Protein backbone atom coordinates (compact mmCIF):
# COMPACT_ATOMS: atom_id res chain seq x y z
CA UNK A 1 0.00 0.00 0.00
CA UNK A 2 1.57 3.32 -1.08
CA UNK A 3 0.12 5.14 1.95
CA UNK A 4 1.72 2.76 4.45
CA UNK A 5 5.01 2.76 2.52
CA UNK A 6 5.06 6.56 2.54
CA UNK A 7 4.27 6.66 6.26
CA UNK A 8 7.04 4.16 6.96
CA UNK A 9 9.53 6.20 4.90
CA UNK A 10 8.52 9.35 6.75
CA UNK A 11 9.02 7.60 10.09
CA UNK A 12 12.43 6.32 9.03
CA UNK A 13 13.46 9.79 7.88
CA UNK A 14 12.33 11.20 11.24
CA UNK A 15 14.35 8.61 13.16
CA UNK A 16 17.33 9.28 10.92
CA UNK A 17 17.05 13.03 11.68
CA UNK A 18 16.98 12.27 15.40
CA UNK A 19 20.04 10.03 15.06
CA UNK A 20 21.88 12.90 13.32
CA UNK A 21 21.08 15.26 16.21
CA UNK A 22 22.05 12.60 18.77
CA UNK A 23 25.33 11.93 16.97
CA UNK A 24 26.30 15.63 16.94
CA UNK A 25 28.89 15.76 19.71
CA UNK A 26 31.35 18.65 19.89
CA UNK A 27 34.57 16.66 19.62
CA UNK A 28 37.81 17.80 17.97
CA UNK A 29 37.17 15.37 15.10
CA UNK A 30 33.67 16.75 14.62
CA UNK A 31 34.95 20.34 14.34
CA UNK A 32 37.71 19.28 11.94
CA UNK A 33 35.09 17.59 9.71
CA UNK A 34 32.76 20.59 10.10
CA UNK A 35 35.39 23.03 8.86
CA UNK A 36 36.18 20.74 5.93
CA UNK A 37 32.49 20.50 5.00
CA UNK A 38 31.93 24.26 5.37
CA UNK A 39 34.68 24.76 2.85
CA UNK A 40 33.39 22.03 0.52
CA UNK A 41 29.69 22.82 0.49
CA UNK A 42 29.74 26.47 1.60
CA UNK A 43 32.81 28.27 0.30
CA UNK A 44 32.80 26.40 -2.99
CA UNK A 45 29.16 27.34 -3.57
CA UNK A 46 30.01 31.07 -3.51
CA UNK A 47 30.52 31.50 -7.28
CA UNK A 48 27.11 30.13 -8.28
CA UNK A 49 25.41 32.05 -5.47
CA UNK A 50 27.12 35.26 -6.66
CA UNK A 51 26.08 34.77 -10.27
CA UNK A 52 22.55 33.70 -9.26
CA UNK A 53 22.10 36.65 -6.89
CA UNK A 54 23.35 39.20 -9.40
CA UNK A 55 21.08 38.03 -12.20
CA UNK A 56 18.02 37.77 -9.97
CA UNK A 57 18.71 41.34 -8.77
CA UNK A 58 18.98 42.53 -12.38
CA UNK A 59 15.78 40.74 -13.47
CA UNK A 60 13.66 41.96 -10.56
CA UNK A 61 14.91 45.51 -11.06
CA UNK A 62 14.05 45.50 -14.75
CA UNK A 63 10.60 43.95 -14.33
CA UNK A 64 9.79 46.02 -11.26
CA UNK A 65 10.91 49.28 -12.87
CA UNK A 66 8.59 48.75 -15.85
CA UNK A 67 5.61 48.05 -13.58
CA UNK A 68 6.31 50.84 -11.09
CA UNK A 69 7.01 53.42 -13.80
CA UNK A 70 3.41 53.02 -15.01
CA UNK A 71 2.23 54.40 -11.68
CA UNK A 72 5.00 56.99 -11.35
CA UNK A 73 6.58 55.03 -8.49
CA UNK A 74 9.86 54.05 -10.15
CA UNK A 75 11.78 55.50 -7.16
CA UNK A 76 10.40 52.66 -5.04
CA UNK A 77 12.32 50.06 -7.04
CA UNK A 78 14.86 49.39 -4.25
CA UNK A 79 12.01 48.63 -1.79
CA UNK A 80 10.63 46.07 -4.21
CA UNK A 81 14.04 44.50 -4.77
CA UNK A 82 14.97 44.55 -1.06
CA UNK A 83 11.73 43.09 0.26
CA UNK A 84 11.47 40.60 -2.59
CA UNK A 85 14.98 39.34 -2.02
CA UNK A 86 15.00 39.20 1.78
CA UNK A 87 11.50 37.84 2.27
CA UNK A 88 11.19 35.27 -0.49
CA UNK A 89 13.61 35.14 -3.37
CA UNK A 90 16.98 34.96 -1.62
CA UNK A 91 16.19 32.25 0.97
CA UNK A 92 14.37 30.07 -1.55
CA UNK A 93 16.66 30.52 -4.53
CA UNK A 94 19.80 30.17 -2.42
CA UNK A 95 18.42 26.95 -0.96
CA UNK A 96 17.54 25.64 -4.44
CA UNK A 97 21.00 26.54 -5.81
CA UNK A 98 22.57 24.98 -2.72
CA UNK A 99 20.56 21.78 -3.25
CA UNK A 100 21.71 21.60 -6.88
CA UNK A 101 25.34 22.24 -6.00
CA UNK A 102 25.87 20.76 -2.51
CA UNK A 103 22.79 18.63 -1.78
CA UNK A 104 23.48 16.48 -4.82
CA UNK A 105 27.12 16.10 -3.78
CA UNK A 106 26.13 15.09 -0.23
CA UNK A 107 23.83 12.38 -1.62
CA UNK A 108 26.42 11.21 -4.15
CA UNK A 109 29.26 11.11 -1.61
CA UNK A 110 27.25 9.14 0.94
CA UNK A 111 25.90 6.85 -1.79
CA UNK A 112 29.44 6.13 -2.98
CA UNK A 113 30.59 5.63 0.61
CA UNK A 114 27.86 3.01 0.91
CA UNK A 115 28.76 1.39 -2.44
CA UNK A 116 32.49 1.22 -1.62
CA UNK A 117 32.03 -0.28 1.86
CA UNK A 118 33.21 2.89 3.64
CA UNK A 119 30.06 3.14 5.76
CA UNK A 120 30.25 -0.59 6.58
CA UNK A 121 33.93 -0.20 7.49
CA UNK A 122 33.16 2.68 9.87
CA UNK A 123 30.53 0.58 11.65
CA UNK A 124 32.92 -2.36 11.90
CA UNK A 125 35.56 -0.08 13.44
CA UNK A 126 32.97 0.80 16.11
CA UNK A 127 32.71 4.33 14.69
CA UNK A 128 29.18 5.67 14.29
CA UNK A 129 28.89 6.39 10.53
CA UNK A 130 26.19 9.00 11.16
CA UNK A 131 28.44 10.92 13.57
CA UNK A 132 31.40 10.71 11.22
CA UNK A 133 29.82 11.23 7.81
CA UNK A 134 26.39 12.83 8.24
CA UNK A 135 26.37 15.14 11.29
CA UNK A 136 29.19 17.44 10.06
CA UNK A 137 27.48 17.82 6.67
CA UNK A 138 24.16 18.67 8.33
CA UNK A 139 25.61 21.36 10.59
CA UNK A 140 27.75 22.75 7.78
CA UNK A 141 24.55 23.25 5.74
CA UNK A 142 22.72 24.87 8.68
CA UNK A 143 25.62 27.33 9.06
CA UNK A 144 26.37 27.94 5.38
CA UNK A 145 22.95 28.45 3.80
CA UNK A 146 22.08 31.58 5.88
CA UNK A 147 25.50 33.05 5.09
CA UNK A 148 25.06 32.22 1.41
CA UNK A 149 21.62 33.86 1.54
CA UNK A 150 23.20 37.03 2.90
CA UNK A 151 25.74 36.86 0.09
CA UNK A 152 22.95 36.30 -2.46
CA UNK A 153 21.10 39.39 -1.17
CA UNK A 154 24.25 41.52 -1.23
CA UNK A 155 25.01 40.60 -4.82
CA UNK A 156 21.37 41.02 -5.86
CA UNK A 157 21.09 44.50 -4.34
CA UNK A 158 24.48 45.57 -5.69
CA UNK A 159 23.52 44.48 -9.19
CA UNK A 160 20.15 46.18 -8.80
CA UNK A 161 21.87 49.42 -7.70
CA UNK A 162 24.08 49.51 -10.78
CA UNK A 163 21.17 48.82 -13.11
CA UNK A 164 18.73 51.21 -11.41
CA UNK A 165 21.17 54.09 -10.97
CA UNK A 166 23.48 53.81 -13.98
CA UNK A 167 21.09 52.39 -16.59
CA UNK A 168 17.54 53.36 -15.54
CA UNK A 169 18.44 56.77 -14.07
CA UNK A 170 17.19 56.39 -10.48
CA UNK A 171 18.86 58.76 -8.00
CA UNK A 172 21.53 56.93 -5.94
CA UNK A 173 20.56 58.60 -2.63
CA UNK A 174 16.89 57.77 -3.19
CA UNK A 175 17.74 54.14 -3.99
CA UNK A 176 19.52 53.60 -0.65
CA UNK A 177 17.09 55.67 1.42
CA UNK A 178 14.02 53.82 0.12
CA UNK A 179 15.78 50.48 0.71
CA UNK A 180 16.64 51.40 4.32
CA UNK A 181 13.09 52.58 5.02
CA UNK A 182 11.48 49.46 3.54
CA UNK A 183 13.67 46.62 4.84
CA UNK A 184 13.47 45.99 8.57
CA UNK A 185 16.47 44.39 10.24
CA UNK A 186 14.50 42.19 12.64
CA UNK A 187 11.42 41.35 10.58
CA UNK A 188 13.05 40.91 7.20
CA UNK A 189 16.78 40.35 7.54
CA UNK A 190 16.79 38.06 10.59
CA UNK A 191 13.73 36.14 9.46
CA UNK A 192 15.46 35.47 6.13
CA UNK A 193 18.38 34.04 8.11
CA UNK A 194 16.06 31.80 10.16
CA UNK A 195 14.29 30.53 7.06
CA UNK A 196 17.61 29.83 5.41
CA UNK A 197 18.88 27.83 8.37
CA UNK A 198 15.74 25.67 8.22
CA UNK A 199 16.12 25.24 4.45
CA UNK A 200 19.80 24.33 4.80
CA UNK A 201 19.08 21.74 7.48
CA UNK A 202 16.19 20.31 5.47
CA UNK A 203 18.24 20.09 2.28
CA UNK A 204 21.15 18.38 4.07
CA UNK A 205 18.94 15.92 5.93
CA UNK A 206 17.03 14.90 2.81
CA UNK A 207 20.24 14.54 0.77
CA UNK A 208 21.99 12.63 3.55
CA UNK A 209 19.02 10.34 4.14
CA UNK A 210 18.65 9.26 0.52
CA UNK A 211 22.43 9.01 0.01
CA UNK A 212 23.00 7.05 3.21
CA UNK A 213 20.26 4.56 2.34
CA UNK A 214 21.09 4.30 -1.37
CA UNK A 215 21.42 0.92 -3.05
CA UNK A 216 25.14 0.08 -2.94
CA UNK A 217 25.57 0.33 -6.70
CA UNK A 218 26.46 3.06 -9.19
CA UNK A 219 22.82 3.14 -10.31
CA UNK A 220 21.69 3.41 -6.69
CA UNK A 221 23.95 6.42 -6.20
CA UNK A 222 22.60 8.04 -9.35
CA UNK A 223 18.99 7.49 -8.24
CA UNK A 224 19.78 8.85 -4.77
CA UNK A 225 21.31 12.02 -6.24
CA UNK A 226 18.24 12.71 -8.39
CA UNK A 227 15.89 11.93 -5.51
CA UNK A 228 17.82 14.22 -3.17
CA UNK A 229 17.50 17.20 -5.52
CA UNK A 230 13.82 16.64 -6.29
CA UNK A 231 12.65 15.88 -2.74
CA UNK A 232 14.72 18.58 -1.08
CA UNK A 233 13.61 21.23 -3.59
CA UNK A 234 9.92 20.40 -3.11
CA UNK A 235 10.28 20.38 0.67
CA UNK A 236 12.02 23.76 0.63
CA UNK A 237 9.20 25.25 -1.46
CA UNK A 238 6.58 23.80 0.90
CA UNK A 239 8.41 24.93 4.04
CA UNK A 240 8.85 28.38 2.53
CA UNK A 241 5.10 28.87 2.32
CA UNK A 242 4.58 27.66 5.89
CA UNK A 243 7.40 29.77 7.32
CA UNK A 244 6.38 32.88 5.36
CA UNK A 245 2.84 32.52 6.67
CA UNK A 246 4.09 32.13 10.25
CA UNK A 247 7.00 34.55 10.39
CA UNK A 248 6.18 37.60 8.24
CA UNK A 249 3.74 40.16 9.44
Amino acid at each position, binding site marked *: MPFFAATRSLGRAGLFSLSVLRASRPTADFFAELVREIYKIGARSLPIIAVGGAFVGLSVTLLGYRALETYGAANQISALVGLGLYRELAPVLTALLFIGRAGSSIAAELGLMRATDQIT*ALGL*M*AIDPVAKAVAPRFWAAVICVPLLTGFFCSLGITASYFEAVHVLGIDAGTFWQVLRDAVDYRHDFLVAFQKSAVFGGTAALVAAYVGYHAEPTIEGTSVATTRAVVNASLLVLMFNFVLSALLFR
Partner: protein
Amino acid sequence: MSPDTPPQDIAVRLTDVRLDRGTRTVLSGIDLTVPRGSITAVLGPSGSGKSTLLAALTGELVPAAGQVEVLGQAVPQRQRALLELRKGIGVLLQGNGLLTDLTVAENVALPLRTHTKLPRPVIDRLVAMKLHAVGLRTAGDLYPRELSGGMARRVALARALALDPPLMVYDEPLTGLDPIASGVIMSLIARLNASLGLTSIIVTHHVHETLPVADRAIVIANGRIVFSGTPAELEATTDPLVLQFLRGEPDGPIAFDTAERSRETA
Protein backbone atom coordinates in the same frame (compact mmCIF):
# COMPACT_ATOMS: atom_id res chain seq x y z
CA MET B 1 38.66 -29.29 18.18
CA SER B 2 37.86 -31.11 21.38
CA PRO B 3 34.43 -30.27 22.79
CA ASP B 4 35.85 -29.93 26.31
CA THR B 5 38.26 -27.13 25.35
CA PRO B 6 38.28 -24.55 28.19
CA PRO B 7 36.06 -21.54 27.36
CA GLN B 8 38.98 -19.13 27.77
CA ASP B 9 40.76 -20.89 24.89
CA ILE B 10 37.85 -20.29 22.51
CA ALA B 11 37.70 -17.09 20.47
CA VAL B 12 34.48 -17.79 18.55
CA ARG B 13 31.73 -20.32 19.15
CA LEU B 14 28.59 -20.79 17.07
CA THR B 15 25.97 -23.17 18.43
CA ASP B 16 23.25 -24.51 16.11
CA VAL B 17 23.06 -21.17 14.31
CA ARG B 18 20.58 -20.43 11.54
CA LEU B 19 21.09 -17.33 9.41
CA ASP B 20 18.34 -15.85 7.25
CA ARG B 21 18.40 -13.09 4.65
CA GLY B 22 14.86 -11.80 4.50
CA THR B 23 12.59 -14.82 4.34
CA ARG B 24 15.27 -17.17 2.94
CA THR B 25 17.53 -19.35 5.07
CA VAL B 26 21.15 -19.02 3.91
CA LEU B 27 22.86 -21.22 6.52
CA SER B 28 21.44 -23.60 9.08
CA GLY B 29 22.69 -25.98 11.75
CA ILE B 30 26.03 -24.19 12.01
CA ASP B 31 28.22 -25.43 14.88
CA LEU B 32 31.68 -23.94 14.86
CA THR B 33 34.44 -23.43 17.42
CA VAL B 34 37.52 -21.33 16.68
CA PRO B 35 40.37 -21.77 19.18
CA ARG B 36 42.37 -18.74 20.27
CA GLY B 37 45.63 -18.24 18.39
CA SER B 38 44.54 -20.29 15.39
CA ILE B 39 44.01 -19.42 11.74
CA THR B 40 40.72 -20.85 10.49
CA ALA B 41 39.89 -20.85 6.79
CA VAL B 42 36.17 -20.66 5.96
CA LEU B 43 35.96 -21.96 2.41
CA GLY B 44 33.13 -22.31 -0.02
CA PRO B 45 31.95 -21.34 -3.48
CA SER B 46 30.75 -17.81 -4.19
CA GLY B 47 27.28 -17.24 -2.79
CA SER B 48 27.50 -20.15 -0.35
CA GLY B 49 26.93 -17.89 2.67
CA LYS B 50 30.50 -17.19 3.81
CA SER B 51 29.97 -13.43 4.03
CA THR B 52 26.65 -14.05 5.79
CA LEU B 53 28.55 -16.03 8.41
CA LEU B 54 30.98 -13.13 8.77
CA ALA B 55 28.08 -10.71 9.19
CA ALA B 56 26.84 -12.83 12.09
CA LEU B 57 30.28 -12.74 13.76
CA THR B 58 30.42 -8.93 13.61
CA GLY B 59 26.82 -8.46 14.75
CA GLU B 60 25.62 -7.01 11.43
CA LEU B 61 23.19 -9.93 11.08
CA VAL B 62 21.22 -11.29 14.03
CA PRO B 63 20.90 -15.10 13.86
CA ALA B 64 17.38 -16.43 13.37
CA ALA B 65 18.24 -19.28 15.75
CA GLY B 66 21.17 -20.43 17.87
CA GLN B 67 23.88 -18.45 19.60
CA VAL B 68 27.00 -16.65 18.41
CA GLU B 69 29.71 -16.02 21.01
CA VAL B 70 32.74 -13.89 20.23
CA LEU B 71 35.64 -13.37 22.64
CA GLY B 72 33.75 -15.03 25.44
CA GLN B 73 30.48 -13.12 25.16
CA ALA B 74 27.29 -13.49 23.16
CA VAL B 75 27.18 -10.96 20.31
CA PRO B 76 24.94 -8.22 21.72
CA GLN B 77 22.08 -6.61 19.82
CA ARG B 78 22.18 -3.26 21.63
CA GLN B 79 24.12 -0.76 19.54
CA ARG B 80 26.40 0.54 22.30
CA ALA B 81 27.42 -2.93 23.51
CA LEU B 82 27.91 -4.06 19.92
CA LEU B 83 30.24 -1.14 19.15
CA GLU B 84 32.21 -2.01 22.30
CA LEU B 85 32.59 -5.64 21.13
CA ARG B 86 33.68 -4.52 17.67
CA LYS B 87 36.68 -2.72 19.14
CA GLY B 88 38.05 -6.22 19.75
CA ILE B 89 37.42 -7.43 16.18
CA GLY B 90 39.54 -6.27 13.25
CA VAL B 91 37.78 -6.76 9.92
CA LEU B 92 39.46 -6.62 6.53
CA LEU B 93 36.66 -6.07 4.03
CA GLN B 94 36.69 -7.36 0.48
CA GLY B 95 36.35 -3.78 -0.81
CA ASN B 96 38.86 -2.46 1.77
CA GLY B 97 36.49 0.36 2.83
CA LEU B 98 39.27 2.97 3.00
CA LEU B 99 37.92 6.49 3.44
CA THR B 100 38.78 8.17 0.16
CA ASP B 101 39.02 11.71 1.54
CA LEU B 102 41.66 10.70 4.11
CA THR B 103 45.31 9.84 3.51
CA VAL B 104 46.70 6.40 4.29
CA ALA B 105 48.05 7.60 7.64
CA GLU B 106 44.75 9.32 8.52
CA ASN B 107 42.86 6.14 7.67
CA VAL B 108 45.04 4.05 9.97
CA ALA B 109 44.89 6.72 12.69
CA LEU B 110 41.08 6.96 12.55
CA PRO B 111 40.24 4.16 15.05
CA LEU B 112 43.02 5.33 17.36
CA ARG B 113 41.81 8.94 17.33
CA THR B 114 38.23 7.85 17.90
CA HIS B 115 38.68 5.25 20.60
CA THR B 116 41.74 6.39 22.54
CA LYS B 117 42.86 9.58 24.22
CA LEU B 118 46.47 9.14 23.13
CA PRO B 119 48.39 12.31 22.29
CA ARG B 120 48.99 13.09 18.63
CA PRO B 121 52.73 12.16 18.60
CA VAL B 122 51.96 8.74 20.08
CA ILE B 123 49.24 8.12 17.50
CA ASP B 124 51.62 9.17 14.72
CA ARG B 125 54.19 6.72 16.08
CA LEU B 126 51.65 3.90 16.29
CA VAL B 127 50.46 4.60 12.74
CA ALA B 128 54.05 4.44 11.50
CA MET B 129 54.49 1.11 13.30
CA LYS B 130 51.30 -0.35 11.81
CA LEU B 131 52.27 0.78 8.33
CA HIS B 132 55.76 -0.62 8.86
CA ALA B 133 54.21 -3.95 9.87
CA VAL B 134 52.50 -4.18 6.47
CA GLY B 135 55.53 -2.87 4.57
CA LEU B 136 54.11 0.55 3.72
CA ARG B 137 55.91 2.93 6.05
CA THR B 138 56.57 5.50 3.33
CA ALA B 139 52.99 5.50 1.96
CA GLY B 140 51.45 7.52 4.80
CA ASP B 141 50.83 10.67 2.78
CA LEU B 142 49.24 8.94 -0.21
CA TYR B 143 45.49 8.89 -0.82
CA PRO B 144 43.68 5.58 -1.42
CA ARG B 145 43.17 6.46 -5.11
CA GLU B 146 46.97 6.51 -5.52
CA LEU B 147 47.44 2.93 -4.27
CA SER B 148 47.54 -0.36 -6.17
CA GLY B 149 45.08 -3.10 -5.19
CA GLY B 150 47.65 -4.92 -3.07
CA MET B 151 48.78 -1.74 -1.31
CA ALA B 152 45.21 -0.71 -0.55
CA ARG B 153 44.56 -4.16 0.92
CA ARG B 154 47.64 -3.82 3.16
CA VAL B 155 46.57 -0.35 4.30
CA ALA B 156 43.16 -1.74 5.19
CA LEU B 157 44.96 -4.51 7.08
CA ALA B 158 47.04 -1.94 8.99
CA ARG B 159 43.86 -0.05 9.88
CA ALA B 160 42.11 -3.23 11.01
CA LEU B 161 45.09 -3.91 13.29
CA ALA B 162 45.21 -0.36 14.67
CA LEU B 163 43.54 -1.14 17.99
CA ASP B 164 45.44 -4.45 18.41
CA PRO B 165 42.25 -6.54 18.25
CA PRO B 166 42.56 -10.11 19.54
CA LEU B 167 40.37 -11.39 16.69
CA MET B 168 40.90 -10.67 12.98
CA VAL B 169 38.34 -11.52 10.33
CA TYR B 170 39.36 -11.39 6.67
CA ASP B 171 36.60 -11.26 4.05
CA GLU B 172 37.96 -12.52 0.72
CA PRO B 173 41.41 -10.98 1.30
CA LEU B 174 42.78 -12.14 -2.07
CA THR B 175 39.98 -11.02 -4.39
CA GLY B 176 41.32 -8.86 -7.21
CA LEU B 177 44.98 -9.41 -6.32
CA ASP B 178 47.70 -10.84 -8.57
CA PRO B 179 49.58 -13.98 -7.41
CA ILE B 180 52.50 -11.99 -5.96
CA ALA B 181 50.25 -9.61 -3.99
CA SER B 182 48.20 -12.64 -2.85
CA GLY B 183 51.35 -14.31 -1.55
CA VAL B 184 52.37 -11.12 0.27
CA ILE B 185 48.95 -10.80 1.94
CA MET B 186 48.82 -14.45 3.02
CA SER B 187 52.32 -14.38 4.48
CA LEU B 188 51.46 -11.13 6.27
CA ILE B 189 48.34 -12.70 7.76
CA ALA B 190 50.35 -15.70 9.00
CA ARG B 191 53.21 -13.58 10.34
CA LEU B 192 50.93 -11.11 12.13
CA ASN B 193 48.86 -13.93 13.61
CA ALA B 194 51.97 -15.53 15.07
CA SER B 195 53.81 -12.39 16.18
CA LEU B 196 50.80 -10.56 17.67
CA GLY B 197 49.10 -13.64 19.14
CA LEU B 198 45.90 -13.07 17.16
CA THR B 199 43.08 -15.39 16.21
CA SER B 200 42.28 -15.20 12.50
CA ILE B 201 39.28 -16.25 10.46
CA ILE B 202 39.80 -16.10 6.70
CA VAL B 203 36.62 -16.19 4.63
CA THR B 204 37.63 -17.04 1.08
CA HIS B 205 37.17 -19.21 -1.96
CA HIS B 206 40.94 -19.17 -2.72
CA VAL B 207 41.63 -22.67 -1.41
CA HIS B 208 45.19 -23.29 -2.55
CA GLU B 209 46.57 -19.95 -1.37
CA THR B 210 44.86 -20.15 2.04
CA LEU B 211 45.35 -23.75 3.18
CA PRO B 212 49.15 -23.50 3.63
CA VAL B 213 48.76 -20.86 6.38
CA ALA B 214 45.58 -22.26 7.99
CA ASP B 215 45.46 -24.44 11.11
CA ARG B 216 41.87 -25.46 10.50
CA ALA B 217 39.49 -25.39 7.56
CA ILE B 218 35.74 -25.55 7.21
CA VAL B 219 33.87 -25.81 3.95
CA ILE B 220 30.40 -24.34 3.49
CA ALA B 221 28.12 -25.51 0.70
CA ASN B 222 24.42 -26.03 0.14
CA GLY B 223 23.53 -23.96 3.24
CA ARG B 224 25.55 -25.92 5.82
CA ILE B 225 29.05 -26.87 6.94
CA VAL B 226 30.08 -29.89 4.87
CA PHE B 227 33.63 -30.26 6.19
CA SER B 228 35.49 -29.30 9.34
CA GLY B 229 39.05 -30.37 10.09
CA THR B 230 42.70 -29.69 9.40
CA PRO B 231 44.01 -28.73 5.94
CA ALA B 232 45.64 -32.16 5.67
CA GLU B 233 42.32 -33.85 6.38
CA LEU B 234 40.67 -31.61 3.81
CA GLU B 235 43.16 -32.57 1.13
CA ALA B 236 42.66 -36.26 1.96
CA THR B 237 38.86 -36.15 1.95
CA THR B 238 36.81 -38.37 -0.32
CA ASP B 239 33.52 -36.49 0.19
CA PRO B 240 32.26 -35.86 -3.38
CA LEU B 241 30.74 -32.52 -2.38
CA VAL B 242 34.05 -31.21 -0.99
CA LEU B 243 36.03 -32.72 -3.82
CA GLN B 244 33.86 -30.93 -6.39
CA PHE B 245 34.65 -27.60 -4.74
CA LEU B 246 38.37 -28.32 -4.33
CA ARG B 247 38.76 -29.47 -7.93
CA GLY B 248 36.54 -26.72 -9.33
CA GLU B 249 34.23 -29.10 -11.20
CA PRO B 250 30.99 -27.65 -12.60
CA ASP B 251 29.04 -30.92 -12.22
CA GLY B 252 28.38 -32.47 -8.85
CA PRO B 253 26.38 -32.17 -5.66
CA ILE B 254 26.97 -28.39 -5.39
CA ALA B 255 24.36 -26.70 -7.55
CA PHE B 256 25.81 -24.31 -10.11
CA ASP B 257 22.76 -22.10 -10.53
CA THR B 258 23.57 -18.48 -11.25
CA ALA B 259 20.06 -17.23 -10.48
CA GLU B 260 20.16 -18.91 -7.10
CA ARG B 261 23.65 -17.59 -6.37
CA SER B 262 22.81 -14.02 -7.26
CA ARG B 263 19.86 -14.09 -4.88
CA GLU B 264 22.06 -15.48 -2.13
CA THR B 265 24.68 -12.81 -2.43
CA ALA B 266 22.11 -10.03 -2.60
